[in-house]
């Protein structure tokens, strides 16, 4: 294993993040504050409690997941798409590195950035509402696994995309709706029975439910199922990436 190469890619990607640290830091703080003003105070004041939890606290896990998922995808997809776009990918392709090492470098960096932003949101949320963290270790595990699996997905999108429009397409048309409809701001038990069943086909439901369980010890779906879902999603992404690297799809001519 070329650990030096993994570290080099990781550092290079992180330096891009540090160059724009203020934006990276301020943007989630601002958006989280806005969510709390709108959903927590304006609308949330009319919703007393959800499953015995104050609405402001209830949306914290969903808010973190929303940002972490979109950030993981956008960081990883941009990270690998940009070298393709400007042509510097030649360096990766001609270096003595395996694709596994390339993935570890890019996905590791994208997941780290998302993790950082997730932590910032968690801290910002703590300024607005009180919430417990019933299972801290499980919370960290869910957060890390979500960052990693969606960074893997972002990496696939970055390889697939032929232009910047395509780079935005999947996050905008698929991921954001799935996250919003995945119970970020409500419990799926609040939906009519038919929609509850339909919602169960949304993989994000399992992530948010599991993550929320780690805070409030209450979940829409069993925690084991949530872990299974995220593990399955990670395996699926790894499988696709393995295939991409075997065939050189959209990387090597």
């Amino acid at each position: 294993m070329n650990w030096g190469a993994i570290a080099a890619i990781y550092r290079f990607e992180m330096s891009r993040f540090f160059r724009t640290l203020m934006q990276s830091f301020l943007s989630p703080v601002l958006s989280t504050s806005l969510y709390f003003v709108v959903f927590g105070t304006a609308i949330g004041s009319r919703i007393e409690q959800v499953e015995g939890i104050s609405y402001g606290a209830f949306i914290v896990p969903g808010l973190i997941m929303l940002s972490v998922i979109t950030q993981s995808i956008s960081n990883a997809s941009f990270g690998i798409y940009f070298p393709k776009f400007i042509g510097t990918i030649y360096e990766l392709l001609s270096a003595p590195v395996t694709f596994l090492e390339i993935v570890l470098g890019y996905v590791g960096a994208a997941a780290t950035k998302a993790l950082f932003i997730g932590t910032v949101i968690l801290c910002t949320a703590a300024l607005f509402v009180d919430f417990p963290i019933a299972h801290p270790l499980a919370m960290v595990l869910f957060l890390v696994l979500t960052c990693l699996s969606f960074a893997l997905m972002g990496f696939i999108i970055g390889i697939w995309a032929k232009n910047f429009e395509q780079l935005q397409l999947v996050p905008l048309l698929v991921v954001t709706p799935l996250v919003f409809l995945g119970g970020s701001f409500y419990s799926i038990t609040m939906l009519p029975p038919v929609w509850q069943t339909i919602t169960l086909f949304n993989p994000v439901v399992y992530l948010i439910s599991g993550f929320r369980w780690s805070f409030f010890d209450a979940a829409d779906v069993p925690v084991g199922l949530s872990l299974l879902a995220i593990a399955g999603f990670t395996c699926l992404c790894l499988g696709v990436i393995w295939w991409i690297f075997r065939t050189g799809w959209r990387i090597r001519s």
Partner: protein
Amino acid sequence: MSAMLSIRDLRKTYDGGFQALKGVTLEIREGEIIALLGPNGAGKTTLISTVCGITTPTSGKVTVGGHDILTDFRAARALIGLVPQEVSLEPFEKVIKTVRFSRGLFGHRRDEALIEKILRRLSLWDKRNAQIKELSGGMKRRVLIAKALAHEPRVLFLDEPTAGVDVELRKDMWGIVADLKADGVTIILTTHYIEEAEAIADRIGVINGGELLLVEDKDRLMTRLGKKRIEVHLSEPLDAIPPALAQPGLSLEGEGDVLMFEYDTQAERTGITKLLNDIAGAGLVLRDLSTRQSSLEEIFVDLVTEGRS
């Protein structure tokens, strides 16, 4: 010397069916500088991209330092440095960081002394903390070279390194190539500039239409294919070549005051003696006499034209 790079019957057909390489075979010795000449679309960049791992070969075998580029790619690529034709650099990154990155990518530990040496040699040290986007085109090319040298390669591919750069950088580059050669680095260079090949290469390969038309020692190639011309400047201009002088290869140039005779240096009888005797016999008075060897450019154009016809 042993072969540092061995290419056997290398073929590449792209998905669209375009055959970019049609069975290229080439052996390059350690420490040698070989220049690949060829028009646009000849297959030069595909050849380099395939050896470096950017393009997957359709068939054939390539080894670098004895390591197969597919089955033992780590060891093979570890020996290779590549300066691509396109100036592809991360615009917002600092010069020194991008060079460090290249070294790291090859799994080498940080070596600030070496990076400084490379940057100084390429006149980039003063710009080490500048963002790439602030640099001129020539400076960016220097960064590409610095990146390629950062992991101390034993084989360096320079894909048209001096395309569109000023004379100063071109000469500077030739100096760098000479330094690398002195260190025993094997260099494969593609270029449009014949004088570049003429100035720095040990051997010349001419590639066209995906085929290697020839590979030969530069000096031998010049001698073997080179035609020489003798220019006889006359005191008095002529209206036409006197019948007594007429022979193949002789023409009247200038304002009728230059007799131009083209001859093959390898021929048993070059015809020079006969020409000079005939001139003396015709009573012509000479003002000056000069000879000129055809340049590599003329040889190259001849070869490519023959290949097409």
